């Protein structure tokens, strides 16, 4: 993805007052790492001091199932990373400047500056709460933070982040299914704020699909209020179906600013332009093609 496309995503984040971007995927292999790498490259080329962190490798079960290593990031000086102690490479050497209290299966998480170009494996803590703390720590010594999220760790997203939703061809059998998944995730991330004075049922913790279905069955008419979209524990068509029959709201808004598409994988390929246009039309967000370096914008 060209720097200018990545720069536009950064500009969208800055336009809504954010100095961090969390990249989340609708599925595994949705192109999160490629997007994050492109954002990192663009920030580095513009001389921005940025930090990069990721959910822990042990937080992504599919990696363990497939036996594959987490993708590496090609980084240059100017980058600061948070990664597990066991993943700090012997070469090129990193400048380690802090040892955090957060732990992963690969040891404690260290904060380190990139001093020479190289490829680095970034694996943070397995819990969303710990990843948030890591992102905050990185933000203290950098001007911009990138969080490489995970498909099943939406809770790592903070209200302070601009969110980029990565949509890939890999996990969806058809383009329509991939577009549905993207629309559901973006709709969830755009959960409207609760209105003061409205009759409301406040949910402590996460709202599960079973609990939401019970509310639908019981004819709940009050606003069903969760802390934020990360506390809605279901997605996809189930979310779209249940959300259409409940007045779902949140106390803290999240900020999705863009989608990206990865139109091909080893499993299948979608027609890139039509795929991007469909995602833009259904989500109402600008959609950047991870590989073609193009953008599809929603109709005004």
């Amino acid at each position: 993805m060209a720097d200018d496309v990545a720069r536009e995503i950064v500009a969208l984040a800055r336009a809504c007052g954010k100095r961090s971007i969390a990249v989340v995927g609708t599925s595994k292999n949705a192109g999160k790492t490629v997007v994050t790498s492109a954002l990192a490259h663009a920030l580095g080329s513009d001389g921005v001091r940025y930090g990069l962190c990721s959910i822990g490798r042990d937080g992504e079960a599919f990696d363990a199932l497939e036996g594959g290593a987490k993708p590496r990031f090609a980084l240059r000086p100017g980058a600061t990373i948070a990664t597990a102690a066991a993943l700090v490479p012997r070469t090129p050497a990193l400048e380690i400047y802090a040892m955090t209290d957060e732990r992963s299966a690969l040891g404690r998480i260290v904060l380190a500056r990139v001093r020479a170009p190289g490829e680095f494996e970034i694996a943070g803590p397995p819990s969303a709460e710990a990843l948030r703390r890591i992102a905050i720590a990185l933000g203290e010594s950098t001007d911009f933070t990138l969080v490489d999220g995970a498909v099943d760790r939406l809770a790592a997203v903070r209200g302070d982040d601009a969110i980029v939703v990565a949509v890939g061809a890999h996990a969806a059998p058809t383009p329509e299914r991939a577009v549905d998944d993207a629309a559901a995730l973006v709709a969830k991330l755009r959960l409207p704020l609760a209105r003061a004075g409205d009759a409301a049922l406040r949910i402590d913790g996460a709202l599960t699909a079973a609990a939401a279905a019970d509310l639908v069955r019981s004819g709940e008419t009050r606003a069903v209020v969760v802390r934020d979209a990360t506390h809605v524990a279901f997605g996809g068509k189930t979310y779209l179906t249940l959300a259409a029959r409940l007045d779902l709201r949140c106390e803290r808004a999240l900020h999705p600013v863009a989608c990206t598409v990865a139109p091909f994988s080893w499993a299948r390929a979608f027609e890139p332009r039509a795929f991007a246009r469909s995602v833009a039309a259904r989500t109402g967000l600008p959609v950047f093609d991870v590989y073609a370096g193009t953008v599809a914008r929603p109709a005004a």
Partner: protein
Amino acid sequence: MTGPWSPEAAVACGIDWLVREIAPAGGLGRAARKRERPFAPGDESAARERLALVAALAERAGTGRLGHLRAAIASIPDPSAILVRARGGDVLADVDFFELGRFLDGLATVHAETRDAAFADIAPPQPDDALLRALAPGRPGHGFYVADAFDARLARARGDGAAKRAAFDAARSRLAARVRAAGIADREGGEFVVMRDAAPNPLPPELRVVREAPTYVVCELALDATARGALAALEDADAAVARAEEDVREMLSAETARAAPELERACAALGDLDSLVARAAFCARFACVVPDIDDGAFELIDARFPPLAEALAERNRPYVPISLALGGVAVVTGANMGGKTAALRTLGFAAACVALGVPVPAARARIPLFDEIVWLGVGAEAASGEESALLSAFGAELVALRSFLDGASGRALVLIDEFARTTAPREGRALLVALLETLRARGDVALAATHLSAVASAAGVDHYTIGRVRSLPPVTEPLALAAALERIGSAMDFALVRADDARATASDAIELAGALGLDAAFVARAEDVLRTSPE
């Protein structure tokens, strides 16, 4: 930390609480704590020495300074595993050198803060100067980096690597420029998509097709001979940098191995200091005193049971310290809610303090060392283990008692709370008397709280009483629980005094039932029944 106390005693007497309160702040202290064992009979001299050391440290350093020192110690990492690996010949990793640097910084801080008389003989040594100097080029701040300053060859290798990278980047840029000139937008490495309807035909030779689709192709840059040559040179240069970086690590690992014995001594000293400071902080916080330790009586003057004292203080309710002298076996009786159980707990807590080398929260104390601290009666049911679910409360008490008597060896402090309260009073009293006679014959120290009558005289042991309702004037309307408890506390005399068996039945139970808000008619009926009942 395990000790000579039963699990039931650990809970009932606040020993678990005490162990948490005196927990070391750092990993080195926790390692030191694992090496410690509680004082037992025969350790009197060592216990006296340790208690005096802790109390002196508390007095000389004070709460504020001890707290500051604990915070400094808490931040020091435990480098033991790193030192073992260095001594074993491993080449350490950068994270290891970072942690060693943090350890040496922390050691230097603690050493600087413990150079005065307050810490005479217990201050940790100075950090290893040679290792500090060796690490210094990589630690301009408080981090660690295999910096050029370690070795001129490393600096040269990195300079050469940077030049080779620039040459490779230039070669790639030339290829990318030719692709751009053919009308395809520039890409930064990796695979990218080129739409067929927007691509030149044929594709420029600088592109290699990775995958074809009807409407697009997935491509990547194809390196030409010049770029491949630059890439080979870059890989050689990177390998040279890797070797030079590893040489630095080998040098630092060898220096670490040389310093390891001294650092391990420093680890042990820091661990011991952490453990001592934790005890001293407790001593300062609770105004503890060093007890006399001998084989004789167990004597407490104005002793406190801090877990209860703190809980009452949080509710703005008064706490009354207790004083007693226990020559052997004794009975304590008195009103419900009058402090019998608290007295038992205070004894167990004080005995555990001494076993753990902690001065005692009291005005004055004389305490022997015990082989065992045992809790029987209420709260000891769990001692019967998995069988407890199958037993009545009385059965479980007896199983716990049998377990103690079968396993007992050495001198025990036995604390007995309402033993046999759930069986017929006459037979329960007989069992309790027999138990007290047994303990007396064994030479144990024991205190039994009971409402059963004339136990002390029957067993031939001392008798104390605690808790007497002075007066509880009637209230016009029911009080909330907190207010009712405060009113009872104000009306209760918590003094523990020697008594005779006549006081044993004065439990003030019905009066307290009324004070706790039970229905007035209910309470009145209970009083009628009591008046008309045979003794």
